[in-house]
C-alpha cells in the first residue's frame, strides 16, 4: 500500500469537489426548508437534512472549502514564519539564535488551544482571524526544523565556496540554504494542514470558529450535538469528512517523509 498515492488522490478529489462545489452539491447549502427538517438519508437527500431542512451533503461539500482554506492559509503563515525565524537563528547563531530559541520554548509552553481560544474571542471569531491565529501559534516546529537543517548545511563546502565568491548573507540563505532545507519543511507543512483542519473543526465545534450560516464541518457537528439521538446523520457524516481529510494529509505527509529519507 502506498500512503503517499492514496493521500494524494484523496486530496486531489477534495480540491476538485471544493472547486466545483456548486455542481457537486445538489442543493443550495443555506437553502432552508423547514418542512423538510431532520429527514434521514434518502435518494432525495443523500446524507439527510438538518434541523432547518438544509441538505447535509451540500453543506458538507461547501465545508471542504472552509477546511482546505483554513489548512492552506494557516500553514502558509506558520511555514513562512518558521522559515524566516529558523533560518535567521540557524545562520547567525550566537545571541540571535539563543533568544529566538528561547522565544520558541516559551511559545511551546502555552497549551496552544488555550492561546488560540483567548485570542480569537478577544478579537472576533471570523474565518480570517482563525487562519491567522492558527498560523501564528504553530510555527515553532518548523522553526526548529529549519534551524537544525541550516546549522548542519552552513558548514558544508558549497556554502564556504559561495561565501568565498562574495555572496551576501541574504543570497546564501535564500538561494543555497533554504532550498536545501525544504525537504522536511514540505513534510511538516503537509502534516500541518491536517493539524490546522482539526483545530478549526474543534473551534467551530465550540461555537467560536467559523460562524453559521457558513457551513464548516465543525459547526455542523455542533448542530448535530443538539439533535444527538434524533438525527445520527448530522453527527456521523461531518466527522467522517474530517477524519478522511486529515487522514489523507497525514498519509501524504508521512509517505513523503518515507521517500525523502
Amino acid at each position, binding site marked *: 500500500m502506498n500512503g503517499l498515492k492514496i493521500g494524494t488522490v484523496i486530496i486531489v478529489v477534495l480540491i476538485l469537489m471544493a472547486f466545483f462545489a456548486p455542481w457537486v452539491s445538489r442543493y443550495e447549502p443555506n437553502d432552508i426548508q423547514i418542512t423538510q427538517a431532520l429527514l434521514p438519508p434518502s435518494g432525495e437527500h443523500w446524507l439527510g437534512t438538518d434541523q432547518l431542512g438544509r441538505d447535509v451533503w451540500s453543506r458538507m461539500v461547501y465545508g471542504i472549502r472552509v477546511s482546505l482554506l483554513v489548512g492552506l492559509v494557516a500553514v502558509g503563515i506558520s511555514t513562512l514564519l518558521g522559515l524566516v525565524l529558523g533560518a535567521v537563528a540557524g545562520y547567525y547563531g550566537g545571541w540571535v539564535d539563543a533568544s529566538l530559541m528561547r522565544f520558541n*520554548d516559551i511559545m511551546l509552553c*502555552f497549551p496552544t488551544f488555550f492561546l488560540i481560544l483567548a485570542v480569537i474571542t478577544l478579537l472576533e471569531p471570523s474565518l480570517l482571524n482563525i487562519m491567522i491565529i492558527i498560523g501564528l501559534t504553530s510555527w515553532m516546529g518548523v522553526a526548529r526544523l529549519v534551524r537544525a537543517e541550516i546549522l548542519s548545511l552552513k558548514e558544508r563546502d558549497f556554502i564556504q565556496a559561495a561565501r568565498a565568491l562574495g555572496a551576501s548573507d541574504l543570497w546564501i540563505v535564500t538561494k543555497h540554504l533554504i532550498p536545501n532545507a525544504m525537504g522536511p519543511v514540505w513534510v511538516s507543512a503537509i502534516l500541518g494542514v491536517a493539524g490546522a483542519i482539526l483545530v478549526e473543526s*474543534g473551534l467551530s465545534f*465550540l461555537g467560536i470558529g467559523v460562524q453559521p450560516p457558513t457551513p464548516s464541518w465543525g459547526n455542523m457537528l455542533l448542530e448535530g450535538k443538539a439533535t*444527538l439521538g434524533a438525527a445520527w446523520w448530522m*453527527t456521523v457524516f461531518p*466527522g467522517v469528512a474530517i*477524519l478522511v481529510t*486529515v487522514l489523507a494529509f*497525514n498519509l501524504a505527509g508521512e509517505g513523503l517523509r518515507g521517500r525523502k529519507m
Partner: protein
Amino acid sequence: MVQYLARRLLSLIPLLIGITLITFFVIHLAPGRPTDVLTDLNPKISLQARDRLAKIYGLDQPLPAQYLQWLSRMGKLDFGRSFVDDRSVWDKIAERIPVTLMINLLAMALVFVVAVPLGVFGAVRQGSFWDHWITLFVFVGFATPTFWLALLLMQWLGIQLGWLPLSGIVSLDFERMNFWEKVIDVSRHLTLPVFISAFGGLAGISRYMKTSMSEILRQDFIRTARAKGLSERQVLYKHALRNALLPIVTILGLSVPGLLGGSVIFESIFAIPGLGRLFYDGVMARDYPVVMGILTIGAVLTLLGNLLADLGYAWVDPRIRVGEKG
C-alpha cells in the same frame, strides 16, 4: 543530581518571565479597555464611574507599569478578582484543578498501559498481520477528531444503551450514597472523559514507542545480549524495553499542553467542572482576570511537566545529568 536540578530550575526563570509577558500582551490585544465588559452592559454608568473603575484595575497607568504591578501581585498568587462573580481568581482556579488533573493523569496512565505494549509488539513483530492493524489504528487515531468520537460514544453508550451517564462527574443523589456507591458513580462518570482524553495520545505514544523500540533493537548491545545466550524474553524486557522507555518519559512530559488544551473541548462536551471549562466560560464572558490567570497557570503546569520529565530522565539515565551543560 543537585547541581543538575539547580541548573534546570535557574533556566526556568527567563521562560516564566516570557510566559507572563506573552499573556499580558495577548490580553492587551483586545480593542478597548478590559473593564468595558463591566460597563458596556450598563448604559447608565457615568464617565467618571468608568474612570474610577479603570483606576481600581490600574488601567490609567502606562502598560509597563501595569505589567509590573500584575507580575508582583501574581508572585503572591493574587490573580485579581473575577469580573463575573467577584471571587478570587486563584480560588476559582484552585478548586477546578483537581478534576482536570485527575482526568488527565488517569488518561496518561491509560495511554501508557495500552500504547507501550502496542508499540513493543509493533516493533518486535514488524511487518506481521497485527503490525499492519496497529499502523492502521495509529493513522486513524491521529485523524479522528476526539470531540466527534465523544459524540458518537455518547450517542451509543449513553443514549442507545444507557450504560454510562452523559454529563457531569457525579449523579444528583451523590450525597446520599455510601462510599462504594460514590466510587462507582464517579468512575461511571469519568469513563468516557478519560477514554476520550486518552484517545489522542494513544496513537502518538504507540508510534513513538514502536520507533524507539525498533531503534534500540538494532543496536550492538542487543546483539551482544543475544550472543551471550540470554533468552529472548530477557533481551526484550530487561535490555531493550528499559532503554526504549526513556524517550517516552519525555514525550509524556511534553504532552501536558496538548492534554490541557484538549480538556477545553471534552470538559465542555461532558459538562465537567474543570479548568478547561472554566477557561471556556471565562473567554466567553470576557472575564480577563480568569483568562490571564489560566493562561499563566496552564503554561506553568507545562513547564512543570517538562521539568518532571527531564528530572525523571536524568534520574534514570546518568548520561544526561553529566553530559548536558544546561
